[in-house]
């Protein structure tokens, strides 16, 4: 039997499974960064920043120290800046290309409860801190992570930008930068949200997302290779963070979604969150999205939330489950050819 079993196990054909080594590397880099940022308050400046030769110190420009209702502009001289909250907009000129990290710290501490970074080329970054105990702005050299695999992203209404300019709004939520290979058949995204997972843009609009695989370059339609592009990511929040790198008690949850495209096996993981948004991308030809929850509730959503480059539109669906209840979210969309197959997301 043992030899037979070994033979049987060897001969057993596994389903198609794949690991992208570069996605692993990118994920590992993010994990390493989170570890660095959460394992020492002093490390908030991040070793990589110091290594870049930037001046490390508490200096802030006058504008940043005394926020005014109007947008303020200054030259960033320190690698780590704590900006007091007043809902103001800050503008910094940065070297190019630069990876900027935005994080939020708990009041009176140096503990980072969330973090974001984006790649900026030839431009400025504005940080709008609103209703927050403080915002930490760290400037990292682009070499910390390859700029082109950071895929500077405008996500969840938290980011807007064009070449040379990134505007970050640090309220309600923000998005992680994504790894989106230009030839991606699948992608992995992470969203960090707080305040119950409510996500909205500055005007209250639904979250949308764009990917820019190359910093400063023209937007690339990264889903061009997909054959049935219903995919997206989930945003939401509950009091139990799933990442060891995040504080156990913070109102921050990590979401992740993983969706396979070409083989038609959409697999979406809500990762333990009972309510939130599913934000995704579907073909422009799709007219309606239908989402079905565990209790049979059906949600029909028009799929014209925001047109994106290429043949796709972004959409968002809110889902809710009772506390502690498992949520299963079934998704499908209708095209002129009919309804697609159901995809399931579950926490």
């Amino acid at each position, binding site marked *: 039997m043992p030899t037979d079993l070994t033979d049987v*196990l060897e001969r*057993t054909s*596994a389903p198609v499974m794949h*690991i992208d080594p570069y996605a692993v590397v990118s994920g*590992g880099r993010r*994990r390493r960064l989170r570890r660095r940022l959460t394992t020492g308050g002093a490390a908030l400046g991040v070793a990589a920043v110091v290594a870049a030769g930037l001046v490390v110190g508490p200096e802030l420009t006058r504008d940043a120290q005394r926020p005014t209702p109007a947008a303020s502009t200054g030259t960033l001289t320190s690698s780590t800046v704590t900006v007091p909250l007043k809902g103001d907009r800050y503008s910094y000129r940065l070297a190019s290309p630069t990876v900027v990290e935005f994080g939020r710290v708990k009041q009176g501490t140096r503990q980072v409860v969330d973090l974001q970074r984006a790649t900026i080329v030839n431009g400025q970054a504005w940080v709008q801190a609103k209703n927050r105990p403080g915002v930490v702005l760290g400037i990292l050299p682009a070499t910390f992570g390859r700029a082109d695999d950071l895929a500077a992203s405008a996500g969840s209404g938290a980011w807007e930008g064009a070449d040379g300019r990134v505007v970050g709004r640090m309220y309600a939520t923000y998005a992680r930068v994504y790894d989106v290979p230009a030839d991606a058949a699948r992608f992995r995204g992470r969203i960090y949200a707080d305040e119950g997972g409510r996500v909205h843009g500055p005007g209250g609009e639904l979250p949308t997302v764009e990917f820019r695989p190359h910093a400063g370059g023209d937007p690339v339609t990264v889903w061009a290779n997909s054959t049935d592009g219903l995919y997206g990511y989930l945003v939401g929040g509950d009091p139990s963070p799933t990442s060891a790198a995040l504080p156990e008690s913070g109102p921050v949850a990590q979401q992740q979604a993983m969706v396979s495209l070409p083989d038609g096996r959409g697999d979406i*993981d809500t990762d*333990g969150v009972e309510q939130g948004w599913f934000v995704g991308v579907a073909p422009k030809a799709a007219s309606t999205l239908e989402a079905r929850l565990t209790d049979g509730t059906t949600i029909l959503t028009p799929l014209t939330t925001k047109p994106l480059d290429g043949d796709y539109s972004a959409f968002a669906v809110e889902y809710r489950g009772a506390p502690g209840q498992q949520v299963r979210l079934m998704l499908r969309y209708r095209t002129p050819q009919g309804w697609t197959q159901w995809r399931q997301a579950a926490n």
Partner: protein
Amino acid sequence: MSSDDDFVDFVRGASPRLLKTAWFISGDPVQAEELVQAALERVFVRWRRVSSGDPLAYTRKVLLNLHIDDRRRASREAPSHDVPDRGVTDRGPEDADHVVRLLAALPLRERQVVVMRHYAGLPEADVADLLGISLGTVKSSASRGLAKLRESLAREENSHAH
């Protein structure tokens, strides 16, 4: 060659068998991919240290721990009322679902031991080290696991014969 290149080579070389191992353990190809991806990300963080030793063994260990974490998390979920539809077909012993179903019928410890011994090909002492259990537990788990697999197969053969 840079450290990242080394790591990428390692991922390329190790991931097929890691994926299949994870699939045997978890019974779910999607979860297997997630587990292997998550395990490898953790290995990447410690690559400099890990690469000088036995990175595959370390990855297996992380993989198994992550699977246990996943199971704990899943056990807190409310059960679903829905019973998934399953077609009934006559399956041979090499049928992938069949093999995974047989393995899934084993308790986790026995499944881990059986897969590590008979798919990963690890010696008993290495399995004990990997799972953090005694050699005796490895032997007894392997013995019980194989006996149960035999019983299951015999039962199925009998039911086919009638």
